[in-house]
């Protein structure tokens, strides 16, 4: 437990210190969100209608962008080798790294969402509804993304391949995240149904993500 706590604190510290890049994901999110009106026009009713969807796409892309360095940084300086040389299962190590990554990139996205929602004319409780769905859904983005991060680390290819590998895995999260947001804002669907499925997706990702990522790392060693 002490070892896992140490790994968690290390990753959080690195992300928080200067050059960690945790804030860049939020900035990227903001820019993606604000590109929308330039593309579709500053039509407030239209923006209100597509707002939750654009917020979700922005958060999806921002969390994907940050995944690139999640394991690659540890590979580049040799830490990844040492992380495996202990009795601690690699699955737990990867899971803890994912958790620290979510705390420093996924959670800030959810927190920033109500503010950024104002730019898309999604205000008040609607913005908080989107934030709630992001809070429930971004863990799934991180933990499914872990698989892609582990695969690309061992294949020694860059972030572009990572996006291609991970984006299809995140489609269900996007579907139910946007469905839950829209249900909360406009109806007529019940909010509970898609939101519960979204939470279920996150829970599934907690299990699948670390196992698949650890397996990819182990098989990646030539």
């Amino acid at each position, binding site marked *: 437990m*002490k*070892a896992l*706590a*140490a*790994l968690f*604190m*290390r990753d959080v*510290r*690195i992300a928080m*210190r*200067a*050059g*960690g890049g945790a804030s860049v994901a939020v900035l990227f999110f903001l820019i993606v969100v604000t590109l929308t009106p330039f593309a579709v026009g500053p039509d407030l009713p239209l923006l209100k209608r597509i707002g939750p969807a654009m917020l979700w796409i922005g958060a999806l892309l921002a969390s994907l962008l940050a995944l690139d360095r999640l394991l690659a940084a540890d590979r*580049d*300086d*040799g*830490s990844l*080798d*040492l*992380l*495996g*040389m*202990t*009795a*601690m299962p690699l699955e737990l190590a990867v899971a803890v790294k994912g958790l620290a990554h979510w705390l420093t990139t996924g959670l800030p996205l959810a927190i920033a969402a109500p503010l950024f929602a104002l730019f898309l004319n999604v205000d008040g409780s609607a913005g908080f509804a989107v934030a709630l769905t992001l809070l429930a859904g971004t863990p799934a983005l991180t933990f499914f993304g872990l698989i892609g991060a582990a695969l690309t680390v061992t294949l020694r290819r860059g972030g572009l391949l990572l996006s291609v590998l991970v984006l299809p895995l995140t489609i269900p999260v996007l579907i139910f995240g946007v469905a839950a947001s829209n249900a909360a804002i406009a109806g007529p669907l019940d909010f509970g149904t898609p939101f519960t499925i979204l939470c279920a997706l996150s829970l599934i990702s907690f299990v699948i993500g670390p196992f698949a990522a650890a397996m990819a790392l182990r098989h990646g*060693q*030539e």
Partner: protein
Amino acid sequence: MADSLSLAAEDLVCRRGGREVFSGLHFTLSSGQALAVTGRNGAGKSSLLRMIAGLLRIEAGRLVLSGGDLDGDLERSIGEEAHYLGHQDALKPSLSVIENLEFWSAWLGRAELGGGECRAALGAVGLETLGRLPAAYLSAGQKRRLSLARLVAIPRPIWLLDEPSSALDAAAQTTLLVLMREHLAKGGMILAATHAAIGIDGIRELRIGPAA
């Protein structure tokens, strides 16, 4: 580490990218012994060390660690008993020197370690004055010393050293030599991949690959 350990390789084969790097490799190493792995570039020195550390799949043959209190505990891999000092220093530039070391002792150490071990290990490699400095400020040689401190702080019987003296100046090489001798005296084992002579009495040489 009081009980005597022994590490044996039987008919070890290494293949990388479809090419056979070495085959039929045998050696045994017991507590208090050191082995210098030599051979030309590409002979598979680093690969052998990574295999022992569990970072490279063993294509054929066996690696057995026996003796000590290990016999009853088959779950333990050799990698858990070994330190691997590769070409990279596994340091995070934004963390301080002591934070880097404390993380690795928490992650790799089996027993609960206080701050004392880390401080003492920093002293052993001559970095005791730099504990609070971010690792980004260290020179290449100092980073190497900090990696060495990891070996001192966490007791593990097998040291796998890949070109340990690279980036070290004369003073640091002396420090390394002292640390290696202490480790052997305490019953440790050392496998070092190297081009140059190491300077330890009674070190045996394992030449791999075709004779150059």
